[in-house]
């Protein structure tokens, strides 16, 4: 069966975007295949347990619909993370409104996730997940973007709409909290 994207496409994101603008559908497939797993991981790490696929799809639809607003001074993945994060936050706000729940602070957000023990086989990983879930939402986002996705503080600041220094502080506070949860 012919693949609709090129799994080993070495083109840069900007090259693929240009090809897609020129009408190459395979370039879009390559971009989605390249970034969808990271977006799915990020969505899951933010507590999106269901509809991860839908969140990722909405992220790409929104991104491709406004691709002209993408500026090459940041990476495409960073930009996609930014869009996805806003989508997830919007979904949570909508869900809260439906539940008539008006508490919106970070600490509450950190406690609304279901335990993942049943999804994690090893005990150590379960402990790590619990430790991460105890973090505030902002700490968790910074921590996972840094550790799992390898984003720099500058890129994290772009995703969160914050500063590089703030991202650095959130990361180190998160790291300290996780280590205390695991080893103390």
């Amino acid at each position, binding site marked *: 069966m012919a693949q*609709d994207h090129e799994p080993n496409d070495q083109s840069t994101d900007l090259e693929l975007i240009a090809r897609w603008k020129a009408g190459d*559908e395979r370039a879009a497939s390559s971009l989605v295949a390249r970034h*969808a797993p990271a977006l799915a991981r990020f969505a899951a790490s933010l507590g999106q347990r269901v509809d991860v696929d839908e969140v990722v799809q909405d992220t790409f639809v929104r991104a*491709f619909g406004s*691709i*002209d607003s993408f500026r090459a001074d940041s990476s495409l993945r960073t930009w996609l993370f930014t869009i996805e994060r806003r989508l997830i936050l919007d979904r949570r706000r909508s869900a809260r409104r439906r539940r008539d729940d008006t508490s919106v602070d970070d600490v509450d957000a950190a406690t609304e996730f279901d335990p993942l023990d049943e999804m994690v086989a090893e005990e150590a*990983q379960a402990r*790590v997940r619990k430790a991460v879930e105890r973090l505030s939402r902002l700490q968790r986002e910074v921590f996972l973007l840094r550790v*799992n996705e390898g984003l720099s503080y500058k890129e994290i600041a772009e995703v969160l709409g914050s500063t590089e220094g703030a991202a650095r502080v959130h990361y180190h506070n998160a790291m300290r909290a996780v280590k205390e949860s695991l080893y*103390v």
Partner: protein
Amino acid sequence: MFDCANVEMRELLPELVGGTLDVATRARVEQHVSSCAECASELETLRLVRSAYASTPTVDVRRIVGALPKVPPTASTGRGGRPLTRWIDWRVAAALTMISVGGLSLAVARRWSADVRPRDVGSVGSSVDTLVVPTPRPVDTAGSPSPSNGQRRSPIQPSRNPHVTPPKAQLAFAGGVDDLDDASIKALLGALDEMDRAPLAPSEEPDPTPVLRVIRPGAK
């Protein structure tokens, strides 16, 4: 629990776990970690976190791609999302059509003006105007042979009759009708009728075209 004082090395630990360091930097960080208990502990924590979140929820790439907008909303499209090249093609075709029609019209107009212009009114100054009137030719209904040279002769040919003054134009008339008397006008009208009855097919025979001389009053 303490943090390592070597901030540079500590900041590079996530990149070490992610495998994005170059060879030299990686060797340097690994050497540091081997001698730093704090960094070794933090590195282990980072690896646990990555492994805990390593499982990626499955995403249907094909479905996502199918949901993407088909036409890129770029400046290369005109209003309404229609490709600009389509408009350009249409305009180019319209311009070429207009140029062709205009050129053809100009050519027809020039030919018409050339046909009606009395080219050989150079004889205007002469006192005798020559009117060449072809005689009716028999129409060969059985199929008249085509000219031997393959060229179609004009229905009105220059006369080869030695009695005929060889005019350059078949019908040339200079001066106003008011200058002619009744007899001359009748002769002229009769000649025109003869021309109307002239066959279109040329003849191979010598053209016995009579010449009607119109003598202006007062001319010698």
